[in-house]
């Protein structure tokens, strides 16, 4: 009876392991109920209400730097500029999430793509030509995408740690290249990169604001708001007066990319990425051309990095130099993805937001920032390994799990074959 007995034992122990796993999941549930409940409630709302609420929320997010809510608003530096940085990092995180979160490719040199996007824009609009911004932008995205293909073609044949190291090197190579290439300005960088085009009359020097009309910001006396006419945003002038229009532009791109991300994720392409991430060999044997899909993820991620870089180049200062693209920025991008929850679109947005915003809000603790950041990065994986906003499907699966448990009255139903 040796063989049969053995198999029986195997079956029994694997069953026990499954139960153990389920038990673990149950224990972890308490922590996440808030998010889960929010999601359930959201799903129960009628479609019209959901759309209305979404639109309201989007308007609120657009107006945030004008509303200047107390507590949230940064006091020491321009809140509009901070919000621009927040939206830009969220955009980067969403792009990098495609590479790391969906396709499972640890890219530690994402800043390289960001730099290529920024430099392409700088070169085309200021240094060697004077293209208008909106012509340079798509070219920058295209060039970055192509650079993603170029880098991915040889390197995506290696896996895991090797890829991380190769991409890490790529980021540094780009930085060193632009530091040493006179043609792209070397250490001096590129200045006078034109801003996006204004809507309405341009501002007249020295003190004109231009634009169609001015939008005042709010100021708060405790909880009482009043109009702050000293802090107006001309609609729509990309100039020195207000950083808010730049924020609006990046935010618009972010929303656009989020839509696109959702459409692609919910398709054959998104599934192929996830399958590749989960088990590359199995995916390949199920008919997924894994190399092609990895390359695609790499190229799309690079394109979004390039988009963000291009927007950064034409931001308020209109100036970039090699120091704008340090290795640390790559690490920050990766941190944003993991803090939010790799593989989760909204996680990337939340992660990017936190990583960009918190250091600006707590500038008074500047000396402690990195320490706190490091601690948070250590604590997070222990208590919330899926990130702050885990992928939605994880929630859905958990709900289904619960339902089935409920139906089964928590008794394990007899296992049936067929």
């Amino acid at each position, binding site marked *: 009876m040796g063989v049969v007995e053995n198999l029986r034992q195997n*079956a029994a122990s694997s069953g026990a392991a499954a139960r153990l796993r389920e038990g673990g999941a149950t224990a972890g549930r308490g922590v996440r109920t808030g998010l889960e409940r929010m999601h359930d409630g959201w799903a129960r709302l009628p479609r019209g209400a959901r759309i209305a609420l979404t639109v309201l929320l989007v308007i609120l997010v657009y107006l945030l730097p004008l509303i200047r809510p107390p507590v949230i608003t940064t006091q020491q530096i321009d809140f509009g500029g901070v919000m621009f940085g927040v939206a830009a990092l969220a955009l980067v995180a969403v792009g990098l999430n495609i590479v790391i979160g969906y396709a499972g490719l640890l890219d530690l040199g994402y800043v390289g793509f960001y730099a290529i996007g920024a430099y392409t824009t700088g070169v085309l609009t200021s240094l060697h030509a004077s293209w208008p911004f909106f012509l340079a932008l798509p070219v920058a995205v295209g060039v970055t995408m192509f650079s993603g293909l170029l880098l991915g073609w040889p390197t995506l044949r290696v896996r895991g740690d090797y890829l991380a190291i190769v991409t890490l090197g790529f980021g540094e190579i780009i930085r060193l290249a632009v530091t040493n290439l006179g043609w792209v300005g070397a250490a001096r960088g590129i200045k006078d990169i034109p801003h996006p085009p204004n809507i309405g009359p341009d501002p007249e020097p020295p003190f004109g604001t231009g634009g169609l009309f001015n939008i005042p910001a709010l100021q708060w006396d405790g909880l009482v708001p009043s109009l702050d006419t000293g802090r107006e945003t001309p609609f729509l002038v990309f100039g020195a007066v207000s950083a808010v229009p730049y924020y609006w532009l990046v935010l618009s791109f972010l929303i656009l990319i989020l839509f696109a991300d959702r459409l692609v994720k919910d398709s054959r*392409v998104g*599934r192929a990425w996830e399958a590749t991430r989960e088990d590359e060999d199995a995916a390949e044997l199920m008919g997924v051309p894994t190399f092609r899909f990895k390359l695609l993820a790499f190229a799309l991620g690079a394109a979004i990095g390039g988009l963000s870089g291009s927007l950064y180049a034409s931001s308020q200062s209109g100036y970039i130099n090699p120091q704008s693209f340090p290795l640390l920025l790559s690490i920050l991008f990766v941190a944003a993805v993991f803090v939010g929850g790799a593989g989760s679109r909204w996680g990337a947005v939340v992660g990017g937001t936190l990583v960009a915003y918190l250091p600006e809000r707590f500038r008074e603790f500047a000396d402690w920032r990195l320490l706190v950041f490091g601690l948070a990065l250590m604590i997070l994986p222990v208590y919330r390994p899926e990130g702050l906003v885990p992928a939605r499907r994880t929630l859905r699966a958990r709900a289904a799990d619960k339902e089935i448990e409920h139906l089964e009255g928590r008794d394990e139903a007899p296992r049936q*074959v*067929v």
Partner: protein
Amino acid sequence: METTNEHGRRILEFDDVTLRFGGLTALDSVTFHIEEGEILGMIGPNGAGKTTAFNAITGVYQPTSGQVRFLDQSLAGLKRHAITKRGIARTFQNIRLFRSMTALENVLVGADSNHSAGVLSALFRTPKHRREEDEAHTVGMELLEFMGLASRADELAANLSYGDQRRLEIARAMATGPKLLCLDEPAAGFNPQEKVQLMELIRRVRDRGFTVLLIEHDMRLVMGVTDRIVVLEFGKKIAEGTPAEIRDDPAVIAAYLGVDEDAS
């Protein structure tokens, strides 16, 4: 040891295949074929080369010498995903599902192999994209139902019970629409009753028009479900024939049944 051709044409020919890893000869001039619509069992003690033969068929390994032909075409040099597209799908001895995807999504990945909609189709929700998504979902849900997994469609593969995971693997492989379905010890870890039920399931899989190559450890099970059996030992084919022929084959009895632990 040719059997009468009661099924169809030969869809797979495993022609004089030798596979060496350094000094180890995992397969030594092994020749067999699979006929359309049959269940071919492949048995042999541990280390006999069964899984290696599988890997040679599905493109994981390239034969050192010899040839694998599928539908009269050589599979040499084909990428693994291309072999799947030609119509060979497999399951794994140790379950290899996409654990953090749902059961349905696992099957969808299989069904996707017949489709070609890319990023642009997805972005613009073209008719092609919608047609393929519908088709994949229909095929996927139908297969889950067939496997008795429909109620678990939205559960993560990792959260499924062991038996459900095994069945999901078969469903995922079937979703690629294969002409040849290779099952690598699908009953491993099952108790005897579950094994019998699984064999019944495999028979129904065949009745749906799939040709099945089945690796199985348990002699009695293989006898019950297969049309023909190939026996491997130490990388060599030692017998081939109907279950009845195999049962009486002295070489098999000596090599396989003779060392069966049940007899000791």
